[in-house]
């Protein structure tokens, strides 16, 4: 199991943090090529594969496998 974030198209809206019930994502000081501060996968072991982040990402940047 893995959570992938497409760093090139993420816009850092933080909606994945809002929708995730288990606080898997967190904002750190990670910046992508366009200057957006993007979220990081922190607690991957807590993920239950509900795929809410994949469904609610406005940029289709997240993929849960």
């Amino acid at each position, binding site marked *: 199991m893995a959570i992938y974030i497409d760093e090139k198209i993420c816009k850092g*809206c933080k909606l994945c943090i809002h929708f995730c019930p288990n606080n898997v994502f967190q904002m750190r000081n990670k910046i992508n090529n366009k200057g957006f501060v993007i979220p990081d996968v922190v607690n991957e072991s807590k993920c239950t594969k509900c795929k809410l982040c994949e469904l609610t*990402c406005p940029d*289709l940047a997240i993929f849960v496998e």
Partner: protein
Amino acid sequence: MVQQRTNPLRKYIRNRKLPHFFCPGCGCGQILNYFLKAVDDLQLDFKKIITIGGVGCTARIPIYLNTDSLHGVHGRTLAWATGIKLYRPDLKVVIFAGDGDLVSIGGNHFLHASRRNLDVTVILVNNFNFAMTGGQVAPTTPFNSVTMTTPYGSKENTIDVCKLAVSAGATYVSRWSTAKPIQTVKSIKKALQHKGFSLVEILSQCPTNFGRYALRTGDPEKVLEWIKNRSISKTKAEKLNEHELKDKFILGEFIDKKRPVFQGTTLFKEEDN
């Protein structure tokens, strides 16, 4: 197994079109995602779907989809849909329209398409203002909220799009919000399978214009929270009186029935459902 690192729904999107033009945290991107999920679950043929967008933020959604699409005149989406549907009834027509596009400028087309029961699916994204042009007041803007053109608060009453569609004669009407992804996907699936005029109104967050002017925040999470706090389910709303429901958005399915579909004036058959 080959490791797939991107969202599988991206196969429905035109090459090199991502990242799209929507602001960070815009609900239109989420609705694009929900629509693709619904189409993927139903296994619909993308070559048999036509998507139409008028003018506005929401109307940009068909640009990213790998279907045949039309994009152009403001508010005239349903007029085009009527023409397409009468000439090629085998095609599935999906309309993406904002509240300013469909209810304000194309309001007349909306009334008459629902009256005729045209066999199209309308996905109405309601973000409470004219977002693309800078946040002007729209017929769906809540009472007393500040927008670009109403700096002392809007004194106009709002229009209830779902009630309007039901009374005009639409046969499937529901309202959900981007804060409820599972229900929205379910409702879009139902609307795509429904024969007749189906409307799914989705309340969506606009952090850049509505959020900054009316709610004094540019944070999509806070705008989403505001929608969530104002939303109420249909079963709960039935127990409350009119005064308590004054500033609430009622979510749920309002009508689901069958009625003869419009097939042109000379070809109208009553027994055909």
